[in-house]
């Protein structure tokens, strides 16, 4: 397998179908790298011509903007847009809902107009087109799975059904938490909280959410965001269920169950 960069495509005068925007978590966080690899494997398997920006990719600026530092956001955004426009990027898929939201909703005002797709939506369309076929007796068949709506995919962008439809192909038993869809409870990472200690309170947000997810009796918590992944994994540890309850990204679930 050879994952090509935009620079390599450009050098050979080709354009890939889609740019895979990896994001900082997907690039550097060890746990999130597995999500990145799972998605790359899927794209490779179904024969999608994709590229990454590689070393040229920068943070979208999301955490800086939400913390209040518009200067850093603008620096990142303008550099990224210049790069994306230079490569003539039309279509972007990303496994991070924060990158997704920023690229899709906030870059157009700065001159960056692309078709931006979150990987769960992309996977759903690949399944609908019959490009992804699932194993008859997949690993997760009959297992209880609960799905955690990330804020930036759900409320921020109204995407609730695509990830659930993807999960349905696993032939698993989907159980919902009480706070789901537009009422979904945050994992506690958004708004740059990921990068600082939580303010003092009676509980941690990820413990609250982790417990709620574990209480469904599911053996898998499906997530769609590398930050939710970190938060929920810690939440599950807090209730001592890390042996029996796994937090897995939807891309990982599909990668391990597709033909």
């Amino acid at each position, binding site marked *: 397998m*050879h*994952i090509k960069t935009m620079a390599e495509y450009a050098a050979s005068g080709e354009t890939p179908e889609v740019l895979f925007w*990896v994001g*900082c978590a*997907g*690039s*550097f*966080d060890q746990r999130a790298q597995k999500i*990145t*690899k799972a998605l790359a494997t899927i794209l490779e398997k179904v024969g999608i011509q994709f590229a*990454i920006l*590689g*070393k040229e*990719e*920068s*943070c979208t*600026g999301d*955490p*800086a903007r*939400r*913390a*209040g*530092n*518009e*200067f*850093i956001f*603008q*620096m*990142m955004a*303008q550099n990224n847009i210049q790069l994306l426009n230079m490569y003539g990027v039309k279509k972007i898929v990303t496994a991070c809902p924060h990158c997704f*939201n920023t690229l899709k909703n*906030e870059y157009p005002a*700065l001159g960056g107009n692309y078709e931006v797709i979150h990987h769960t939506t992309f996977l759903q369309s690949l399944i609908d087109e019959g490009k992804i076929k699932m194993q008859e007796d997949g690993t997760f068949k009959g297992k209880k799975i609960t799905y955690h709506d990330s*804020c*930036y995919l759900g*409320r*921020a*962008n*109204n995407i609730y059904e695509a990830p659930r439809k993807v999960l349905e192909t696993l032939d698993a038993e989907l159980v919902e938490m009480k706070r789901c869809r537009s*009422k979904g*409870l*945050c994992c*506690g*990472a*958004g*708004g*740059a*909280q*990921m*990068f*600082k*200690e939580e*303010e*003092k*309170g009676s*509980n941690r*947000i990820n*413990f*609250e*959410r982790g417990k709620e997810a574990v209480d469904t009796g599911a053996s898998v918590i499906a997530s769609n965001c590398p930050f939710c992944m970190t938060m929920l994994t810690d939440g599950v540890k807090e209730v001592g269920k890390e042996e029996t309850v796994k937090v897995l990204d939807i891309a990982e679930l599909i990668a391990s169950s597709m033909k």
Partner: protein
Amino acid sequence: MQIVQELLFVILFGLAVYLFTKKARQIRRNILLGQDKDLSDYPDRRWKNVLLLAFGQKKMFRNPLVAILHFFVYAGFLIINLEILEIILDGILGTHRLFVPVLGSLYPILIGLFEVLAVLVTLGCAIFLIRRNILKLKRFISKDLDGWPRSDANYILITEIALMLLFLTMDTADQTMQLRGSPHYITTGNFWISGMLTPIFSGMSDANLLMLERSCWWLHIVGVLSFLNYLPYSKHLHIILAFPNAYYATLEPVGEMENMPAVQHEVQLMLQPDLAANAPVSDVVPKFGAKDVMDLTWKNLLDAYSCTECGRCSAACPANITGKVLSPRKIMMDTRDRLEEVGRNIQANGTFTDDNKTLLRNYITEEELRACTTCNACVQECPVSISPLDIIVQLRRHLVMEESSAPTEWTGMFSNIENNMAPWKFSMDDRDKWAAEMNG
């Protein structure tokens, strides 16, 4: 005697309208203290929001049972107010039930319908009082509401019940007098509710009944006019402002944060120095973010006046649920309180005179602002299209860009992004290490 009553009524009515208009103009002035923001695009989509969110109360139906009760109170209160038109005309002209000859047999049906609604409003308000004071729902016993806000809520419910009971008593007395063939009481036909209640008053003399009916009539209309003037001082103002607030609600995905063109421009000049050479030099130093209410947009300030302190936002807020000091409802209440204070300042001094206070710190603390995860749950829940998040983010922008006030971890995160293009301290060269591992 009649002319004295008419005169008294006209004076009362005129005074009520004058005082309400005066206060309404002050509120309008206060809202316009906010920064400009053009929200006049897509009128069709905006009117649709008014229909769905304000008239249809779409968001209320996230909890259907409460939504139905609220709808009764809202529709009832609104529709019954059509009857106020007749009452006002009767008051000015010294007539009694002016619309009977005009509407004929339709009249008792309309009044009957109003009476049914009046019963539903009474029931709804009674249940709401129970939820607040006996069942003590979490969002109603929160310390956000300590003091005046909690009383305000109860006064509103009690007043609405009182007004409905006065209306029903008045009609019952009227129906009883009609049955007795009293010449002053024009025959209207049977009213659905009060028509059944007439036996209650069968033992009363004509004189007492007349007194009762007139007292109820006066108390009811004086109550309505007083309530009108209570609105601008109360959270109940939402019955008016929910409509414009739905019209001006954001049409963008709520995940999108407002761009800052001033910063965009500065960074542009920084990244493309050749542009900077020809750029016009401006001696106005732009302010970034918001420190006080005047720095917020007029929509934020309209939001503050539209808030009815229901607390659905705070009940859904992950920070609030886990015991942090942040409460989106308090953000809105603080904004309104500070804006009212600024308004009084202008009232007293002609223009705003520095009072050494600001929304940030005197009302909203840094700890509150730093607890927000920007999850949009508060925005999602608000039935009247308020965004507490928009205010939080603008205050954060002020803290970081004007005061360089950020938790040390954030300062580190900023410099990591600036130097390594990632919020963590990793080498840029390692960004595609995962790919190298796959490429083998």
